[in-house]
């Protein structure tokens, strides 16, 4: 019997890329940690070698500027001001470093504004029938703002945050070390995690929604609200170029929440098979509509 190598699936390839990327991030973080240690060790040795001070005031006056210099070196090392990059695939506008991959990526030059998110949510949810209490736009915008504050993957390292940590905490405190590591460790922002948070927020909000006279608020309706809200927040975070939806297939097969694959629509009769892999499908099994962008 001959064993043939199985072709990895898209999901496996994605996981492999994630593992590789995380290993690279860990390697860089270790290297940065070592360099920070070196700077601080040099500072300590420098101070330990002081012999000629006459009073404590004099020692303090000598040591403080050197400590400031060491801290400034750490800030410069960990949060360098990146030079403006020009992106060959766009018009050469400013790009920013990605905290997740440390590569320059094209970003939206405008800052994230809450009013833009609120407007996008109103536009996106406005096409659905609202509950009697109206859409909890403010609460949903809060979720988006909190998510963005948690660590926008397209922002530069937070230089001010680092300086604050260095200013107020003792270098050798465990808490400080943890804060520094937490700051330096990029937070992989997954759309699935955002969807989970939004789903929770919608679920809690929907408990307060007054059911329409027709009956109880449909859970699948809340699911669609969560999906639309997630997509809106994601598009707001990443700019329109990151949120290009998959082309429409048919009414049974819809783009998944991360726009990477098609899934069955809730009421297609295949709702228990929503997660079935449709990568190799060339036509819809219900209506035989051809897959967009691929010849059957």
């Amino acid at each position, binding site marked *: 019997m001959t064993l043939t190598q199985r072709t990895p699936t898209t999901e496996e390839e994605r996981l492999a890329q994630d593992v590789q990327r995380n290993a690279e991030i860990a390697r860089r973080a270790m290297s940065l940690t070592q360099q920070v240690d070196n700077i601080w060790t040099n500072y300590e040795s420098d101070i330990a070698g002081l012999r000629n001070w006459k009073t404590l005031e004099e*020692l303090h006056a000598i040591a403080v500027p050197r400590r400031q210099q060491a801290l400034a070196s750490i800030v410069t090392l960990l949060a360098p001001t990146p030079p403006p990059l020009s992106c060959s695939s766009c018009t050469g506008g400013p790009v920013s470093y990605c905290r997740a991959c440390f590569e320059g990526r094209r970003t939206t030059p405008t800052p994230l504004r809450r009013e833009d998110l609120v407007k996008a949510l109103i536009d996106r949810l406005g096409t659905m029938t609202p509950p009697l209490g109206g859409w909890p736009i403010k609460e949903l915008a809060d979720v988006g703002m909190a998510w963005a504050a948690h660590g926008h993957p397209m922002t530069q390292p937070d230089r001010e945050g680092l300086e604050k940590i260095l200013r107020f905490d003792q270098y050798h405190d465990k808490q400080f070390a943890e804060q520094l590591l937490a700051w330096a460790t990029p937070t992989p922002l997954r759309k699935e995690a955002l969807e989970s948070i939004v789903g929770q927020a919608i679920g809690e909000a929907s408990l307060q929604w007054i059911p329409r006279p027709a009956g109880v608020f449909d859970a699948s309706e809340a699911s669609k609200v969560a999906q639309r809200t997630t997509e809106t927040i994601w598009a707001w975070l990443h700019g329109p170029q990151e949120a290009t939806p998959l082309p429409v297939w048919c009414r049974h097969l819809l783009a998944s929440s991360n726009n990477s694959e098609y899934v069955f629509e809730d009421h297609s009769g295949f709702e228990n098979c929503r997660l079935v892999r449709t990568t190799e499908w060339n036509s819809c099994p219900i209506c035989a509509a051809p897959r967009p962008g691929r010849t059957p």
Partner: protein
Amino acid sequence: MTPLRLTREATVRAYQLLVKEGTATPAEREHFIQVFNALIVARWSMAGLRWIKDQAWRRA
């Protein structure tokens, strides 16, 4: 930097021997200097250092 610990009272006495009286032996002098350098690295405030100095000069 190796942490060197002294009680507050001992720190006051060390400052007396090192600066006020200047009678520390070379070995004591090296040790006390390292203690105060370590206090600086540990980010002792100037107020804390001044307390040591004041106490050292106030006491006999």
